[in-house]
């Protein structure tokens, strides 16, 4: 457990000292969220109706962009090879990295959601639902991104392959995430929230095994 926490702390420290990355990510999230209204037009009721979709698409794209950081630099400088031979199981290492990655990428996005919500004309209750669905849904996004990152880690021209692999897998997260924010049908949003939580728990529990398997192959 101490080794697990040490890896989380290491990744957090590495991420925070390159503070520019987090800022860029938040900026990207907000910019995607503000570009779509330009394309849709400044019709406030329509924007408010589309707001859940915009928030989720922006979060999905921002998350997708940041996934490469999960193993990329560790693979290049050789720390991944050291971690692979560490006494701590590789599955735990992957779990620690996912946790740190979630803190470094998903939390800033969630924190920036109120800004976006304000501009899109979301009401208080919808904003709370948005934050709730993001909190429940982003772990699953991180998990699927981890599979994509682990599978393409050693690839020189893997830049575009990982998003193509990850996006179809992330679609259920998007569906239930926006479903959880829809106030139209009473009861349906609660059900979507539960499914979203289930998806997050299952993927976070199973992904470390798949990703660790791929990372072992990458080292061979």
């Amino acid at each position: 457990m101490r080794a697990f926490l040490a890896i989380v702390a290491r990744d957090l420290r590495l991420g925070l000292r390159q503070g520019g990355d987090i800022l860029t990510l938040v900026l990207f999230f907000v910019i995607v969220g503000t570009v779509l209204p330009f394309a849709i037009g400044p019709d406030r009721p329509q924007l408010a109706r589309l707001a859940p979709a915009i928030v989720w698409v922006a979060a999905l794209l921002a998350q997708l962009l940041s996934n490469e950081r999960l193993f990329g630099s560790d693979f290049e400088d050789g720390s991944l090879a050291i971690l692979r031979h560490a006494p701590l199981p590789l599955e735990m290492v992957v779990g620690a990295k996912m946790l740190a990655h979630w803190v470094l990428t998903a939390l800033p996005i969630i924190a920036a959601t109120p800004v976006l919500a304000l501009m899109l004309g979301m009401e208080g209750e919808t904003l709370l639902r948005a934050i709730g669905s993001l909190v429940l849904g982003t772990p699953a996004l991180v998990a699927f991104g981890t599979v994509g990152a682990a599978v393409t880690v050693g690839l020189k021209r893997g830049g575009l392959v990982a998003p193509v692999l990850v996006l179809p897998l992330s679609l259920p997260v998007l569906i239930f995430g926006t479903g959880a924010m829809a106030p139209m049908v009473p009861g349906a949003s609660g059900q979507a929230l539960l499914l979203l939580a289930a998806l997050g728990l299952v993927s976070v529990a199973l992904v470390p095994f798949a990703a660790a398997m791929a990372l072992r192959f990458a080292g061979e």
Partner: protein
Amino acid sequence: MKDLALLEDNAPKPGLWTQIAHPGLFLGWSRHLIVPLAVITAALAAWGLYLSFWGSPPDYQMGDTVRIMYVHVPAAWLSQFCYAVMFASAIGTLVWRHPMADVSQKAAAPLGAAFTLLALFTGSLWGRPTWGTFWEWDGRMTSTLVLLFIYLGIIALWRAFDDQLKAARFVSVVTLVGAINIPVIKFSVDWWQTLHQPASVIRLDGPTIAPEILIPLLVMTAAFSMLFLTLHLVRMRTEVIKRRIRSLELAAARAAAGGAL
């Protein structure tokens, strides 16, 4: 060659499983299967097409458009069957590290993508006259579209690697993770009750389709399955030969470089 020599030392007669799975022996026995399989496929397709165009009545509601079903339903079944083949081969790759499992996986991916595309295409052609729309965002169509994207992503991953032996293991991981989509497709019509009709052939209480429509459908399904089997075998043979040529070329290049030095 070295492996073969070893094999002869230890066991004078290779076992059945070795004969099936050894790449060199595979090329030997599969050569004799291609033509008979192709003939069976052509015969079944001819019979099935005759039944579906002339040997079956038009539907009392949908008229002649019901004939699209004889292509649509087998293609949709095959699109999922291909994934099952890839899933089984992926386990073969991960557990036994068997090169023929790699080859089988790689050969099935484009076939699966083609059947999925055919199912989506015929589905939209059928949807226009009966539902009034080419495309509807309902559960089964969306999840089949996701299946197509997964197939294409897997093909892209295969092509991103230079070393195909290595690629097979990474692709296997993705194949296993992507398999969660298959039950979603199967049960989508039960979970989200939308336009697409629920299962009507394979049911506990027997099929709800009239026999004069069911028989052409089953013949066409058999034809499609045989087509898959034939093409899969041809693609596997091509892949084995391709790898063999590549290793021969590498050996020749190495010899040439050694001679130059």
